[in-house]
Every structure is written in C-alpha cells, then in structure tokens.
C-alpha cells in the first residue's frame, strides 16, 4: 500500500490504481465522464481534474487528470484546490454549451450522470447564448433509442461497444465539435450487448426503447434483487415495476458474476411478462363444450386435488426455467420416479453430464469474472454469443489477458485503457474455437476449427490425450497434429487455462471430452492444476433441475405410450415446443388428466384439464442454480394481482387438500427452500444465497421503492378512494413500499443504488467494497459445486457411429431460442426466421439450393424449412434453429432431412 495525501490528509491507497478510483473509493465526490471501472481511463473528458503538488512546500501545484495519475507513494493532491476546481467547472460549462435543456422529457432524467456531475462541478450559469448544435438521430432498432443532440462526446459508448464488446457497427464519426456516435446508416445495432449503452451513456443519448413505451422515472420504480431468467449464466438484474407491470430491467452489479453488464436477451426479455399470452387466472381450457372456463382459486385447487387423489400414477414434468422450489415441490408430489424434465434426451444428458463432470473431477467451474481473467481458452462446440452471451463477453476479455500482460511489461498501468490499446493492437488470445459454424467470437480466435459435433468431441479427446497419455484413445475425426499440440501447449503454459463447452451442440460426447481436456491439463502442467471448466447450460435453472435428478421428457412420453401414466403435472413448460405438436398431443391424450402451471398460454396448456397462473420471476420468490453451480435468489419485485402465485404455492395448496401432509410445512419461500436443502445434500447451502426474511436493520425491513416514490396514494384511486395497505412480504427482508430502514442495507439486498449526489448507475462505486470489487458486505449467491479433486476417472466419450447422414446441429439464437424472451416484442422483432443451414457442398450433393424447402423429421415431429447456404458451416452438419416457433426442439437436436422424393 502507498501513502497518499488528499487535501492534506493521508490515506492508504493501492498504488496499482489511479487516483480517480482511489478518490471515489474513499468516498469523495469527484466528477468524471470517460472513465468507467470496466473500461479504464482514456483521459479524454478532462473532468476529473485535481491538483497535484510536488511536495509539502509546493502550494501552486499542477492540474492533472485523476484518472490518468497513479496513486503512487507520496502523491499529494487536492480536490478542492482552485485551479482544478475551476477547470472542472469549465469542462462542464463546455459540455453544456450545446447540451439541450430537455431533462423533463428525457428518459435519462433523474438518473443522469451528466445532471449529477453538473451539480457536483458547480456549473450553475450558462455564459453561452449561441445556438446549440443539432444532429439527426438514428433508428437503432426496436431496443435502443438514439438522441444525439444530448451527446457530450465522452466516447464511452464506442469504447464499450467496440473495444469491450467487439461490435463493429457503432462508431465515432466526423471530427472537432461535430463528432457523431452512430451507425453508417439507420438500422438495429448488431451487438447482443448493445443495451448496455443505455447504462454506459452518461446522459440520454442511448435510451431503453422498451421502457419508453411504458415509461417510469427511476424514483417511481419498485425494485428488488433478481436473477435473469433467460439463460443459464445467471446474471443479476434489477427489474423495475410500477402499476403492476415491469417497466424495465437493468444490470445489477455482481462482483463475481456479471459485473456491470447484461446481454440484450436478459435486458429486454422481460416484456414477456406483460405479453397478451399471460395467464392471469386459473382456467379449465376444456370446460363445458370444450370452451375455456375461468376458475376460482378454490375450484381450481379442488380440481387439481381431485386429479391427484383419483389418479393411480401421477407424473410430474419439471422445468429448467422454474425455480428450485417449484421443481422440488413437484418432485415431492410425484416422487423421484415420477419426476421428468421438460427437456429432450440430448439436452437432458448434456446437463447431467456437465453437472457430473463439475462434481467428479479436479476442474473448478469459474464465475464469469474469473473467466475474464483466464489466459488461454478452448471452446468446444458452443456458440457462446448466442447461447450464453455474457460468457462470450467474458471470453472477449480473457482474450486480452496475455496481450495486456505484455503491455504491463512495457510499464503501462492496468487502468490505462488508451495506452493498453496502443500496445495491444490486434493481439488476442490464445483462444481456440472448435465449432460447427461461424460464431461472433471468431474475430478474436487464435485459430478456428469447423467440425461436426462428433469431430469436435474427438478433437477434444485427442488434445486431452496429448496432455495425458492416460486419456483413452478414440477412433474418430482427429485434427492435425500441429493443431493438437498448439492447443495442448497453450493449456500447459497458461497461468489460468479454461475449457468451455455447452449443450448447444446436443452432444454429451462434447461435454465429456471438454471435461477430459480440462482434467488432462493437470498431468501436463508443472503446478498439477487442472484447467478451469465452464459449461453453458441453456436454461436459468438447468443446473438446479439436474441437481434434483429426474429423467428426460422422452421417457415420460414413452411411459404414457405404455399406458403407465394417469395424470401429468406440467410445470412451466410447453411440451409442444420441445417434442412437437404431434407427440405432445398424443401424450396429453394418453394421460387421463393434465395440469399445467405456467405464466404464458401455449398449446400444451390449451390441452390441459386445469391451468394455473404461475408467478413470473418478478412476481415470486425462489432460487435458481446457474451453469457455474451458483445458487442465486430471485426476490419478488412486486406482489402480483391475485390469484397469481408461485407454482410451488399452487402445488402446495393442492397437495394439502389431497392429503400430502408434507406440504403443510412449506409455509413460505424460506421454509420450502430449507426443505429442499435438507432433502438434497447438493442443495444444502441454498438458504445461504441471500439474507433471510427475519433480517432487520434497526428493527425495520428494507424498502423496495425509493423514498422519493410518488403517487402511491393515488395509484389505485380508480378502484377505491382508500389507499390499500401495501402487500406484506413474509418471504424476504424487503418491504413492498417505500417504507423501510433509513440505514443503508448490505449490498446484496440493496434495491435502489442511489447515493447522495449520485443518481445514475455510476452511484455503484458507493456500494462496492472497493471499485470493481464485491458489493458492500459481500455479493449474494452461494456456490453449490466445488471440484472433487484427485483421483478422478476420465469420462467416457461415446462417439456415435459415423454416418453418411448430415448431423443435426442446433443453431442457437440469442434472440429467439429462449422461450420466454422470444415473447418480448423487441426480441421477437430481432429473432431470425426459421431456416435450415447447410454447407454449400452438402447442399449441392443433396441437390439443394438457397431457399429450397426441405422437410425435417424427428420422433414424430416435423417441420418444413427453407435452405440457407453458409460456406463457413462444417460439412456434414445441418444447422437447425433452436426453439423458434414452428420448429420443435427435438428437430434441432435430432432432425433428419427428408430429401429426394
């Protein structure tokens, strides 16, 4: 630690940091624009001026930029010194020369960093009376609004978009005071991370277009810590609600998981919650004369209880997008033998294999921000940008680990973003990508290999064998010796090597080969450490569901086929989407009774006896386990209108009525979580993921709404002149109102991230233990899975027999492949149309051309897809989009092309 002086007072500071970070960390106010903790310093805005002195006797000093000045031993600086304060005021004045006075109609108003900084720097009077410069803004697509007139040219947008997230279509154009930040021409921003511009921009240039449709100021939003429900990464989110509907989702900082950012699926998927397909009341879809009939809670629960008591064998279909609690309740209801997963066999096997690999071997699953620090990466099969976008973003940072260390040896401090970029130039990696088709990470790869999933598994195994001869040899499509050795060497010499795979190739062999590869590194390395091993699983709770155990959907269908099922309880899933309309209809015909619990109506629900309206992630409490094996708690953001409630509460009520006494003890979210933790040793630490409901600060709970929340008394005036009592929350330490402890709560249950003088997302520095570190008091969540260590047995990589048929390979789409987010209008607008992607040579040998329509069939499901040629796709594979409307998931995993006659 170094000793530095700020305005005459000495402090301890980390000399590897810059003074801006240190000053903010110490709690001082110092305005800035171009700096961002994730982006580093470029010294361009000149806003964070301080005065630096040469010694104790120097009173004149020199103005320096805090963000560009290391916290070196003995540094003496002043924030208050007139020369620096004057410059800070000037800089704001310059920025405001052309900034419009449109705060009242600007979506950023009230959480605008520029507003905060203007006040902080003391600019109160505009000397310029000149006309302001104006620009023509662009249409950047359905998710992001653009208002260039507000721009203060801090360059954070392009630095995030281009340098951090690897996008190409947002640029700084022009020169002098006519710089324009935008695209070459109007059009949707292409990056899956574009939505972060909304939070990166210090003012209202980039705004949330979805929020604009149902706009609410920050101070009128009710929020709670939550977890994104749209993929397996488990990013932390702050959803905001008003008048019973979600208004927006913002990234919620997590020091180990997603840091400051979110992908656009996660940010904009929330609008499914107000989709017109929402189920808001219990229904009997096949009521009198097959007309849908609304049911009372009482009637609905009674009907379900009757089904339970009258059926001989009841099975449950659990859901990888439902919470641990809801799946656990269902599993208890139907018993372990009767519990199936709403996932087809390939996905089910992949998830299970991944979980086993993480538990049985020596490799640790890194958190996202640990991935960022890995310095050699091998990705087997997965198109991460599409299936787990934030993991791809983390790998983009990992690709800079080695080049950055070179810069560091040139004497460049780690925060000096501008100099690092000059030093790094285009150097990246080592990152090796083995995939069936081009991915958006290809641009940073040291080498890219296009292979069939089968060949990818074989290659992974071959590299593993090069590291450790104990790894069993496989006959298969291996890669060239030099390639194998290059990757093996990279994994051996790296500080922190990483192997990544996922269920996106539908290949258990790939999952197992990735494990073997990660494990085998321990044999070759001097430190005997195995590489880290990260899996991208498709759903928010794929890992949690796999920890509970259960069989794939295909087996449930088979059991029904054998006439062994009398009733099925289907939790938060659409079987038509997975198995296809034919098999799903057949299944529901074979079981006498079906109950569906879900948020959204779908064909499967339409065929059920009873449909129960399940709370969404924003309306209920529960836990999810992400791909890393980290259990995280979703807290209800708002209390939904009756009778919507969490699936497990519906199940509990029916079970109690049907005489399942056990359900009695599930008196609240915590009680059922504790029950699950008791029953499943793997979940033992589940209750540690968040503070418990009895947590109090000075005797009070923590408010979900900020103290400036307005209009509560009038919100429901049209229903009743008496203001209703806010709903109670017995399940968490949060209150559904703005009443709460005035004491600052621990970061993990902080709801508003709002500090005096800091209303924008930049207030975050006030809530971190150190800049970029964990939230004050620790980040939420708890890791459930740690590696077993040595000894271990290599996993069996079973390759399918070589076949002349094209291997069906899912094509995952960040926008479209995930069921819920695909219902959000903004996401839907960006989702691809159905297609069948082929290598032109394969297409030629099948006599197919662009736009030809081909039938694809699997397990009783089928679809007609039009051909799209992709020269980059590996020969021998047929890319079939995953999860798009009219393409059952089974087809993407197992589809067979019907060609010729």
């Amino acid at each position: 630690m170094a000793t530095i002086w700020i305005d005459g007072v000495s402090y301890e500071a980390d000399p590897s940091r810059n003074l801006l970070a240190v000053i903010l960390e110490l709690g001082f106010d110092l305005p800035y624009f171009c700096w961002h903790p994730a982006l580093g310093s470029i010294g361009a805005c000149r806003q964070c001026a301080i005065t630096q002195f040469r010694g104790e006797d120097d009173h004149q000093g020199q103005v320096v930029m805090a963000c560009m000045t290391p916290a070196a031993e003995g540094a003496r600086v002043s924030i208050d010194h007139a020369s620096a304060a004057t410059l800070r005021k000037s800089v704001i004045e310059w920025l405001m020369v052309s900034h419009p006075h449109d705060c009242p109609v600007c979506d950023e108003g009230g959480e605008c960093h520029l507003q905060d900084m203007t006040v902080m720097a003391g600019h109160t009077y505009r000397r310029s009376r000149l006309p302001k410069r104006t620009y023509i803004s662009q249409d950047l697509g359905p998710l992001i609004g653009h208002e260039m007139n507000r721009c203060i040219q801090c360059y954070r947008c392009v630095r995030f978009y281009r340098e951090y997230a690897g996008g190409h279509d947002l640029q700084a154009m022009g020169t002098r005071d006519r710089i324009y930040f935008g695209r070459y021409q109007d059009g949707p921003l292409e990056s899956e991370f574009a939505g972060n511009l909304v939070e990166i921009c210090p003012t209202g240039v980039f705004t949330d277009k979805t929020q604009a449709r149902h706009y609410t100021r920050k101070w009128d939003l009710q929020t709670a810590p939550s977890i994104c429900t749209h993929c397996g990464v488990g990013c932390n989110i702050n959803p905001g609600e008003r008048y019973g509907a979600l208004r927006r989702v913002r990234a919620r900082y997590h020091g180990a998981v997603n840091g400051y950012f979110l992908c656009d699926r996660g940010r904009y998927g929330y609008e499914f919650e107000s989709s017109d397909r929402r189920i808001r009341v219990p229904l009997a879809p096949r009521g009198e004369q097959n007309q849908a009939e609304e049911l009372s809670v009482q009637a609905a629960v009674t009907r379900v209880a009757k089904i339970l008591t009258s059926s001989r064998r009841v099975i449950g279909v659990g859901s990888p997008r439902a919470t641990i609690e809801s799946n656990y309740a269902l599993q208890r209801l139907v018993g372990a033998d009767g519990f199936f997963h709403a996932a087809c066999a390939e996905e089910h096997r992949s998830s299970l294999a991944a979980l086993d690999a993480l538990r049985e071997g020596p490799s640790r699953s890194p958190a996202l921000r640990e991935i960022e620090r890995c310095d050699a990466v091998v990705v087997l099969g997965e198109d991460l940008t599409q299936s787990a976008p934030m993991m791809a973003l983390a790998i983009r940072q990992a690709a800079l680990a080695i080049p950055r260390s070179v810069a560091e040896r040139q004497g460049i401090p780690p925060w000096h973003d501008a100099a690092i970029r000059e030093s790094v130039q285009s150097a990246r990696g080592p990152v090796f990508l083995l995939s069936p088709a081009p991915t958006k990470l290809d641009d940073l790869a040291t080498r890219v290999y296009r292979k069939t999933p089968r060949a990818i598994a074989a290659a992974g195994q071959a590299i593993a064998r090069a590291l450790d001869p104990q790894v069993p040899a496989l006959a298969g499509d291996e890669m060239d010796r030099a390639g194998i050795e290059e990757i093996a060497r990279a994994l051996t010499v790296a500080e922190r090597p990483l192997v990544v795979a996922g269920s996106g190739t539908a290949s258990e062999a790939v999952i197992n080969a990735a494990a073997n590869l990660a494990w085998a590194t321990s044999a070759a390395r001097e430190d005997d450490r195995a590489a880290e091993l990260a899996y991208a699983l498709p759903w928010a709770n794929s890992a949690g569901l796999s920890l509970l155990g259960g069989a794939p959907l295909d087996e449930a269908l088979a059991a029904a086929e054998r006439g062994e099922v009398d009733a099925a309880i289907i939790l938060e899933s659409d079987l038509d989407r997975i198995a296809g309309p034919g098999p799903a209809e057949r299944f529901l015909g074979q079981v006498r009774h079906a109950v569906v619990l879900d948020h959204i109506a779908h064909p499967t629900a339409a065929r059920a006896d009873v449909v129960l309206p399940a709370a969404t992630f924003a309306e209920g409490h529960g836990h999810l386990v992400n791909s890393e094996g980290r259990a995280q708690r979703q807290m209800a953001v708002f209390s939904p209108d009756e009778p919507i409630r969490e699936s497990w509460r519906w199940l509990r009520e029916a079970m109690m009525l049907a005489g399942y006494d056990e359900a009695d003890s599930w008196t609240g979210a915590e009680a059922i979580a504790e029950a699950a933790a008791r029953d499943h040793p793997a979940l033992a630490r589940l209750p540690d993921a968040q503070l418990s409901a009895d947590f109090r600060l000075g005797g009070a709970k923590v408010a979900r709404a900020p103290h400036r929340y307005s209009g509560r008394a009038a919100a429901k005036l049209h229903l009743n002149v008496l203001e209703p009592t806010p709903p109670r929350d017995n399940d968490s330490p949060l209150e559904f109102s703005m009443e709460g402890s005035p004491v600052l709560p621990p970061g993990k249950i902080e709801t508003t991230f709002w500090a005096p003088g800091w209303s924008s997302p930049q207030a975050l520095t006030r809530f971190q233990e150190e800049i970029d570190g964990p939230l004050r008091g620790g980040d939420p969540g708890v890791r459930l899975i740690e590696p077993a260590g040595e000894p271990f047995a290599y996993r069996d990589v079973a390759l399918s027999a070589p076949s002349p048929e094209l291997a069906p390979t899912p094509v995952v789409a960040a926008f479209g492949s995930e069921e819920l987010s695909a219902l959000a209008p903004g996401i839907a607008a960006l989702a691809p149309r159905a297609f069948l992607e082929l290598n032109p040579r394969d297409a030629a040998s099948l006599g197919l051309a662009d736009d030809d329509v081909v039938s694809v069939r699997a397990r009783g499901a089928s679809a007609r897809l039009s051909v799209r040629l992709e020269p980059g796709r590996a020969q021998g594979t047929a890319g079939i989009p995953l999860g798009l409307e009219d393409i059952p998931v089974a087809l993407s995993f197992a589809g067979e092309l019907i060609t010729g006659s």
Partner: protein
Amino acid sequence: MAALSSAERAEIDAEIAILPDARSASIEALKTVQRHRRWIDDDALGAVAEYLDLSKHELEAIASFYNLLFRKPVGRHVVLVCDSVSCWILGNEAVKQALEDSLGAAFGEVTRDDRFTALPMQCLGACDRGPALMIDEDLHGPVQPADVSELLRRYP
C-alpha cells in the same frame, strides 16, 4: 461500379504489402478508390470495407476524419483554396470570391459542366506563396483574383 477494379485492387494490395495488416491500409485504400472514381460513394466505401475486412461503419469513421477524403461528388478537377491565416492576410477572400464567380458555383458544389469543385482547405503549406491554391496536383501562388479565370482555363 461497386466492385473494386483490378487496378484498384492491385494498388491497394501494394499498400497492404508494406504494412503489418490490411486494416492499416484503410486510408490509402480510400484514396486509391478516390483517385479512380473522383470521390468515394457509398458503394465504393462498402467495397473497400469488404476488401479490408472492416465494417462499413468502421471505414466511415475513418473516412469522415480526413479532409481530403471526399464522400460527396466532386468535379473532374478539384480546386483546393488555402484558407489559412497566412493566405488570408494576403487577400485570399478576394481570390475565393473570384473563384466562385468564375465557376458559377459555390464552394463544395460541382460546376454544371461537371468540370470543377472548389473546396476551402485549412492550409496548403505554401505560405511564402500566398494566396495559394491547388488545382488537382498543381500548386499555384501567389494568385491574384484577376488570374483565376485564366488558371481555370488550363484545366479543360
């Protein structure tokens, strides 16, 4: 004429050959296209971007930074008039006026016969010969207003 001609490709390749990577040749590539086509239209920009494996957005960011990369049509001959203080004190305003009068077109416009476009340049670096102007590759100075129409006549 969106695609790059073989001559254009050859010239761009020669630039790429002496640089560590293709993207470093971006400015030269744009100038090459401009030499062949007078100015860089959207199609040309797209073609260069594709050739250098850059996005159009990235290339436009570069193109829009430099005064001598023309993204709007120009005439067959481009007249660059020095607009710096050293020429200004020697009376370049009158030269500029004479030029506009002779051309019958304002700065930035293409004359009706497609022959000329006059552009003010911040400084031509011919301060000892001010007021200076360039027509195509030829530097002229000192230029008096009366000389302008005769000068232009030399560029049919």
